[in-house]
């Protein structure tokens, strides 16, 4: 296990705005998380804490467990060992805890996963109406505000398949935001997009970061990572190998595997 290397967190002022996170409480806390798929260990003793309003970008080669890790945070995958605590709520078998956590954690998928049988508007109003019991009109007003925010209010009455990939992903972000989450998880949100649409999605994510959202982002967009992240985290073979500021990562990565990965991707 790599407990030693994990300790080398660079607790220096973050690259983006000095110590804007100083004194913030930890909103996500994982401790020794393991995940097995049959005999295959996808996560190996992952310990990570994220402060409120922090932007963490997760890097790592394919199959290193990045998706598995963030999917454990809202229990789309159940972890086999270790603890996960989100905003003070323990993630375990208790269904009430799970419900409370899922209301606080929004997720955006690589494949968008919009509901194709519902209009754009209803994709967004579904959560607030069904989970938060918000009246229909309020939910629709909220949905329109969010569509405004992601820049596509004119698409409200269309169906997902009638939108471009970039527009779909922005709807997916609006859908997650409609639950007023404290934390947003992004699993390679731009990987399924054509290059000209990547920017429109990243712009929305930037705006979201500036608004103070706590974000965990799995991405290969190094420009975004360098510019927006407070902290970068590097996974390999299910282990959290190295973490630190963007500056640390891009200028003086310590681990060989990190160097190799960055040399391939940059």
């Amino acid at each position, binding site marked *: 296990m790599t407990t030693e290397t994990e300790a080398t967190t660079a607790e220096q002022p973050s690259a983006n705005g000095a110590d804007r996170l100083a004194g913030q409480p930890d909103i996500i806390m994982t401790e020794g998380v393991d995940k097995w798929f049959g005999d295959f260990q996808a996560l190996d003793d992952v310990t990570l804490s994220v402060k409120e309003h922090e932007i963490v970008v997760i890097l790592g080669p394919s199959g290193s467990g990045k998706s598995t890790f963030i999917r454990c945070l809202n229990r789309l995958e159940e972890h086999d060992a270790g603890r996960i605590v989100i905003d003070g709520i323990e993630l375990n078998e208790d269904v009430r805890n799970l*419900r409370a956590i*899922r209301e606080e954690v929004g997720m955006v998928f690589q494949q968008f996963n919009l*509901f194709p*049988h519902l*209009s754009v508007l209803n994709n967004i109003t*579904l959560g607030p109406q069904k989970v938060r019991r918000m009246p229909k009109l309020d939910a629709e007003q909220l949905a329109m505000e969010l569509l405004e925010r992601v820049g596509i209010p004119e698409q409200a009455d269309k*169906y997902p398949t009638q939108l471009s990939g970039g527009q779909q992903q922005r709807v997916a972000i609006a859908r997650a935001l409609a639950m007023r989450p404290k934390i947003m998880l992004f699993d390679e949100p731009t990987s399924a997009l054509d290059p000209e649409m990547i920017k429109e999605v990243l712009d929305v994510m930037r705006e979201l970061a500036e608004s103070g959202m706590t974000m965990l982002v799995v991405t290969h967009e190094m420009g975004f990572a360098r510019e927006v992240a407070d902290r970068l985290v590097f996974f390999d073979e299910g282990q959290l190998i190295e973490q630190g500021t963007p500056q640390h990562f891009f200028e003086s990565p310590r681990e060989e595997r990190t160097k190799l990965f960055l040399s391939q991707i940059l």
Partner: protein
Amino acid sequence: MAEQPPIPPPAAAAPPQPPRKVVLPPHRERAHRPWRVRAEEWVRRNLFASPGQTLLTFASLALVGLVIAGAVWFVFFQANWRVITVNRWLLFAGGFPLDEKWRLWLSVALVFPLIGAAYGMWASLGRRDLLFIALAGAFVFFLTAHGDAGPSSSVWFAASLALFFLGYRVCRFVPRETGRPRTLAVRTLAALLALALPLVLIVLMVGGGAQASQFGGFMLNLILAPVGIVGGLLLAVPLALGRASSLRAISWTCTAYIEVIRGAPLIGWLFVALFILEDVISSPLIVRTMIVLAVFTAAYVAEYIRGGLQSLPRGQGEAGHAVGLSHLQTLQVIVLPQALRVSIPPIVGQAIGLWKDTALISIILPLRELVGNSRAAIAQAEFIPDRIEVYAFAAVLFWIVAFMMSRISQRMERAQGVGER
């Protein structure tokens, strides 16, 4: 103007241009020729392309001609249709009390506009459908209303047909593309269709109407099949979900149900309704038959729904959970609506199959549906030679309904996948 083309070089420098020829894409070009030429070409290419094909064409024409000639000869010169007109109450309504005839007609008048509406919503009445409806209408009208004591049957029937077209017209105003208005209209129609059956039963039975045991003839087929289909659908949803469940006990139970039911023919299960089920549920035979039909249909429909469930990407359920929906809510608003939509075409196929299978019932059970009462009709001394008339009549009635179902389902299938998965 800035966009003027450059001045052409002097004529001497370039050879004079030939007059420009408009080149149309092949299909446009063909469309420009007179229909007679096109018809000729079609005939040549599709019927007489080679000596062998020419031979086959003539052989088929001869065969079809013979059959049609034979049928026309039979219908107009040979057949004795009195067997139908005399027995029409028996064939249509069995033991239903004659005094309560208005209840039957009222049911027809309730259901026809809904069928018209379904046609309008999913299909459109082409020339072929109109021809079909005209023929079928004339056929039924002639054999039901003809020679009636008063005008009441004619009036009822004409009114029902008018309501059919009204329902059709109204639903033609619903926009074709998916959107909120269409969703709303489809839901309303589905609800009305679901309500139709109980409503018809109320009209038939409540307030001094008929007993269930008096139902018979074609009317009984028309009641049993929808009960089997609707009941089967309702049962099939939990079965399909159960089979896909991760709880072994549940998935094994559901799998066993499905495989056992599908392992024996309907006729076998009708035997069960007659002999075995009576010891379990003390209820009239007609109710036991309904149960068997629903249970039988459910096993097949469950498999189609399971196919629909499997066709959904895993991300759909995950996205539902991620926005905080419970397991049940995710099923209800995300997974099932999509899975059911995918499995509509095979379910309609199953419905058509069950519709035709209701003809089996009177072979096993002492329930007199259309085929059973056809046999009763030709058991009368006077009509013993008129077998063919009676069975041909029954076959046409079955075919009319099956044809309408398949038309609507074909169009529904084609309409799928526009803005939806």
